[in-house]
């Protein structure tokens, strides 16, 4: 659809091969139960009975917190809402989704500074920015249609800064490319703020009228002069000054970031530093400004809004906050809701390993490949009493399951999805699900009935009506309204409200309406290269595959172009180790080892290795060290050693 405001009719490679994936013969078609002789096909009725019985069993024997629910950011809002409702009505907050692994730090970081952990401006706003500062995002490969807007801005003369340890297709679009060492983002951001403050380029009025906490920041910044920062980050100090001036002087400037910022043990602080930079320059609340965290899946924003999170109820009411709990209790007509926060996705796995979680229900997730430290994950899954996996393919996680429920894919069901720019859009089914596969919502309602939970089976439209009551920002979301245009952008509190594409125009969503400027300190990553493990391994995406790859690795044409796991290594490093392009390499970290094909390229700096995470193997290497607040694992930095195979 050329008139769509986000992609304007364009598709990325994954989008172009969707049909190959949806029509793949490997699609799960029937419920399967694991027996001693392998998988056995069973009827839906029996499958749901079994799932309910096992869940009830754990519940009675070991209490509600022995259950855990891992939701999917690829499922609709309605499905995520009902999913977490089931979990919470069963008495546990052990419900989470994969946002934990990509943008949990955005929720905490932007939450405490701006009050709302979401993208402040729509993607199309980038076209009217005069300066775009991209840090830790390779949108040209991961969100190709975003580049359209960035190029549009460039055409009007915008200055584009890209900070990334690698030279990526995103850096190609840059006027200034900053090649920093992985894990030194805070130093760079503080360094830029140091320049802005010492040269008086900060927005005095904005800081005075809309924020609190500037003086603490000013003090904290003193140590981050360009020379010091240059030593930490490896970026020439002149470039730091240039970037700072360009960002601060621009009439409108936007910050774009992704997992290069969030997936660190200092993820929350990284995000906070980004927010500080935008706040002191007043680049927030106007068209062309703002902070744009780009999400990686179609409904990460929605899954979080729906409360598929261990510490938040629907609409971001904090678990334990009596007022938020009270509202839900009235709506759900129940008087018990667990008051202590549940286990996050990463903690669930850990708890399963220790035997604290007995039954795990996973929808559309592949923790074996997507969580850090795969070998621990596998051990933990084996340790479970019962594992239910609901997916469209037999994933590596599903292999560990006791019960598999075949689900319909996005094009085969109806529901609403919330995109990265908070745009909620309604999806109508275009295809029929294969075999006996059912829409996730239908499965969840079936299960709820078997569990004896008191809510009737309803259509997605009716669930949305309940959501609009539970989540204030969705108050005006109606199926018919969304279908008319290209969805609605939350917050949209009432049926007459047009939606709010730009946040924070008048005041911030903090209790007093002021944004908080919070100083943060640079800390070294949890693991740094040393004599034993001399290389720094960082992970990321490639343009041709999608997340854990359970879908994109089933597309013939994508696989033809990117068939196997590879590792990028700088030619200078390769020379000293006598590695040639195409050699099989053996990689080892403190946690595990894997094999990959060497790809010699200047895209990575010396001493740095890069691996895509779409293939099994990459996350056997990564570390499970977590951010203190967001509990996001540090995927981006591990110490690693290699040898030729």
């Amino acid at each position, binding site marked *: 659809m050329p008139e769509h405001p986000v992609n304007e009719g364009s598709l990325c490679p994954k989008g172009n091969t969707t049909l190959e994936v949806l029509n793949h013969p490997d699609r799960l078609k029937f419920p399967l139960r694991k027996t001693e002789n392998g998988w056995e096909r069973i009827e839906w009725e029996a499958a749901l009975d079994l799932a309910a019985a096992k869940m009830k069993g754990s519940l009675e024997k070991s209490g509600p917190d022995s259950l855990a629910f891992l939701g999917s950011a690829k499922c609709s809002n309605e499905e995520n809402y009902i999913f977490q409702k089931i979990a919470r009505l069963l008495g546990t907050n052990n419900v989470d989704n994969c946002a934990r692994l990509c943008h949990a730090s955005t929720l905490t970081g932007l939450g405490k500074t701006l009050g709302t952990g979401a993208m402040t401006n729509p993607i199309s706003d980038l076209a009217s920015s005069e300066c775009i500062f991209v840090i830790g995002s390779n949108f040209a*490969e991961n969100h190709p249609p975003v580049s359209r807007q960035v190029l549009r801005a460039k055409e009007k003369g915008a200055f584009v800064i890209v900070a990334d340890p690698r030279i990526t297709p995103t850096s190609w679009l840059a006027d200034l490319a900053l090649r920093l060492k992985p894990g030194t983002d805070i130093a760079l951001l503080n360094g830029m703020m140091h320049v802005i403050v010492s040269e008086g380029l900060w927005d005095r009025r904005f800081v005075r009228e809309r924020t609190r906490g500037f003086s603490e920041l000013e003090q904290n910044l003193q140590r981050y002069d360009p020379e010091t920062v240059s030593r930490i980050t490896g970026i020439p100090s002149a470039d730091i000054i240039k970037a700072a001036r360009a960002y601060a002087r621009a009439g409108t400037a936007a910050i774009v970031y992704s997992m290069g910022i969030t997936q660190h043990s200092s993820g929350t602080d990284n995000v906070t530093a980004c927010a500080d930079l935008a706040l002191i320059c007043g680049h927030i609340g106007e068209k062309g400004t703002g902070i744009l965290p780009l999400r990686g899946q179609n409904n990460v924003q929605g899954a979080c809004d729906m409360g598929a999170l261990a510490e938040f109820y629907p609409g971001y009411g904090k678990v334990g906050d009596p007022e938020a709990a009270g509202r839900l209790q009235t709506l759900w007509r129940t008087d018990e809701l667990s008051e202590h926060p549940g286990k996050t996705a990463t903690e669930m796995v850990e708890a399963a390993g220790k035997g604290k979680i007995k039954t795990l229900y996973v929808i559309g997730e592949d923790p074996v490949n997507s969580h850090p430290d795969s070998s621990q994950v596998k051990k933990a899954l084996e340790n479970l009493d019962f594992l239910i996996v609901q997916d469209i393919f037999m994933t590596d996680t599903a292999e560990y399951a006791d019960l598999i429920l075949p689900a319909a894919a996005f094009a085969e069901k109806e529901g609403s999805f919330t995109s990265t720019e908070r745009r909620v859009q309604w999806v109508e089914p275009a295809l029929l699900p294969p075999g006996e596969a059912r829409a996730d919502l239908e499965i969840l309602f079936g299960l709820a009935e078997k569990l004896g939970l008191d809510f009737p089976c309803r259509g997605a439209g009716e669930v949305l009506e309940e959501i609009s009551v539970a989540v204030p920002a969705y108050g005006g979301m109606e199926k018919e309204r969304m279908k008319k245009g290209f969805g609605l952008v939350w917050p949209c509190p009432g049926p007459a409200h047009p939606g709010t594409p730009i946040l924070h125009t008048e005041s911030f969503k903090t209790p007093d309406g002021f944004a908080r400027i919070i100083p943060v300190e640079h800390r070294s990553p949890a693991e740094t290269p040393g004599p034993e493990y001399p290389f720094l391994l960082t992970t990321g995406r490639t343009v041709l595959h999608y997340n854990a790859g359970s879908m994109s690795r089933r597309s013939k044409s994508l696989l033809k172009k990117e068939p196997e796991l590879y590792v990028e290594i700088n030619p200078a490093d390769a020379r000293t180790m006598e590695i040639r392009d195409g050699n099989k390499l053996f990689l080892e970290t403190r946690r595990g080892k894997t094999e990959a094909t060497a790809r010699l390229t200047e895209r990575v700096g010396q001493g740095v290795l890069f691996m895509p995470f779409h293939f099994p193997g990459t996350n056997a290497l990564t570390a499970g060290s977590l951010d203190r607040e967001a509990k996001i694992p540090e995927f981006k930095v591990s110490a690693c050693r290699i040898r030729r195979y």
Partner: protein
Amino acid sequence: MPEAVYADLSRCIACHACELACERENESAKIFVQVVRGLAAVPVSCRQCETPLCAAVCPGEALNYRDSRLEYDAEKCTGCRLCVLACPFGTAELRAGVVERCDLCQGKEIPACVATCPSGALFCAEAENLGEDIRTRRAERIKKALGNPEPAGRRVNR
């Protein structure tokens, strides 16, 4: 009017979406993207030449340049592969006895590769109009360089 798919190389981000869109619509890709020295990506497809060398060597008159369009008659094609050898760009291919080259997705409003290009690098245009955009952009840049430099910071005096 002769049209062809052109690429604004400064915009290409090597995402391969055009190849996959072409494969989806035409079974096999007829546009090829590759990264050059890790710093730039260039899509290459049939240039729709106005003096097509492929047609010049065709012995069976299967390839004909008529009305500003290269027409291909598979009936007359003998599969001799001389056209493949004549093409300076290496964009004609012989697959199962049939010459395959970009035909701009005949019957469609715009070619699939152009419609799908996420960065807007590919465009379908007539040769006459190719330079227009670039000239305007140049002129604007020259004008900007001539004008007074913009104030050094918009909010220094607030």
